[in-house]
């Protein structure tokens, strides 16, 4: 490839770079290159481990820890009280994992047609077909042995007093979710950030397009009261708002000292 670039320099020089990908190569690529890393390491403890890992990698690449932001994906359910939110969270999970979805999830692990199973009944007694892992295609796969996963699900179902297929899928596929009143959720989000489990979050509401409304109206003021969230945008670019250093001009760019 050899050519001229046809667009004048843009305000940020180049976009803020985010990386999502969890392999060792992915983490190193992020540590060397990215401004932020989008991760699914959601719990407080897993977050702290991941945070230390990737910030350490960034330092080994000659960067400062604060040059790479750690942003886990996070879901949330709000309520007037913590109890109210907990009730709503159960409803949301049941709406996310209906009977058909539960069976589809199960089929992804088992690699078999399980359409004859009742989602409200027990997990299949047969083992996964490990040679048929591509029953679902196009989903980001987290390469784990399906037999291990199946055993974990069975253990989970047994430990919780005999969960149904649907209940097991709901439990097993739940990610970290911040559930509670606005005050509780704000305090918990802030605890993660101040405790270096992350630098912030990529929030994933469960409703489009209004799923962020209540968060903006109730949790945001709580975060502002805690002094952890801006009350106005101070930067002009995204890079500035994120507190990142300005983009460096490339080392080879020695011919131009002034702009035309």
């Amino acid at each position, binding site marked *: *490839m050899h050519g001229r670039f046809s667009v*004048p320099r843009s305000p940020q020089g180049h976009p803020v770079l985010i990386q999502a990908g969890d392999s060792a190569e992915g983490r190193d690529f992020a540590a060397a290159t990215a401004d932020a890393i989008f991760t699914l390491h959601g719990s407080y403890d897993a977050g702290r481990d991941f945070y230390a890992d990737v910030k350490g990698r960034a330092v080994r690449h000659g960067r400062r820890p604060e040059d790479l932001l750690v942003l886990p994906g996070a879901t949330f359910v709000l309520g007037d009280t913590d109890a109210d939110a907990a009730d709503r969270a159960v409803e949301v999970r049941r709406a996310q994992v209906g009977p058909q979805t539960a069976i589809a999830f199960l089929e992804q692990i088992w690699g078999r047609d399980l359409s004859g199973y009742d989602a409200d009944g027990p997990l299949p007694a047969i083992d996964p077909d490990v040679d048929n892992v591509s029953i679902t295609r196009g989903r980001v796969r987290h390469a784990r042995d399906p037999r291990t996963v199946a055993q974990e699900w069975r253990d989970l179902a047994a430990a919780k007093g005999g969960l149904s297929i649907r209940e097991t899928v709901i439990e097993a596929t739940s990610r970290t979710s911040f559930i509670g009143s606005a005050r509780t959720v704000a305090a918990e989000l802030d605890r993660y950030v101040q405790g270096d489990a992350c630098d912030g979050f990529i929030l994933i509401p469960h409703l*489009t397009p209004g799923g962020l409304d209540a968060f903006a109206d109730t949790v945001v003021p709580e975060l502002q009261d805690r002094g952890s969230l801006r009350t106005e945008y101070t930067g002009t670019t995204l890079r500035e708002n994120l507190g990142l250093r300005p983009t460096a001009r*490339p080392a080879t760019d020695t011919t131009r000292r002034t702009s035309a």
Partner: protein
Amino acid sequence: MTARKQIRLGAHFPGVNNTTVWSDPAAGSQIAFDSFAHFARTAERGFFDFLFLAEGLRLREHRGRIHDLDVVGRPDTFTVLAALAGVTGHLGLAGTINTTFNEPYELARQFATLDHLSAGRAAWNMVTSSDAFTGENFRRGGFLAREDRYTRAREGVDVCRRCGTAGPTTPSSPTAAPGCSCATAASPTCTTRRASSTCTAGSRCRAARRATRC
């Protein structure tokens, strides 16, 4: 006292993942512009850093059929973000864009353009899927071995970075480039060497004082 650590917030637009609830009476369109605009304005009202669009280049299939329980279509990221630039003023606009199936030079142009349109609010979530299943939607198919995915990603970013930062800090007019009508004096020259279909060499990009290639 040291300043309190500030929480960074991204807002993932719901609609293309398996956690979006459609049975709720409040569930709306995942493709109408009103939905994107509503979501973006809410994020900006809440002082979020950026809006985030995920990407899937091929619809999921389950037992050979489109998996319509959790996927309901995938609009084009750059187009949506460009439109949102017009209805927001501070919110970052982050797009998930694959490094395997897109050309580095095109991406550099698209992101530079988005950055201009939004006055400095563009962000790129770089993803590297290289599987042949996704590749079937692209002319070159599954051309890249999985172990080369980050080599190619690195090249894409390198081109974007070098082309993007080598230009002038303020856009110059065409007349600033004497002798060449199709490039400004400030346009950088980008050189990237590739061995076959995988990228083995990094890219170089020089800022040319005068137009030498058009």
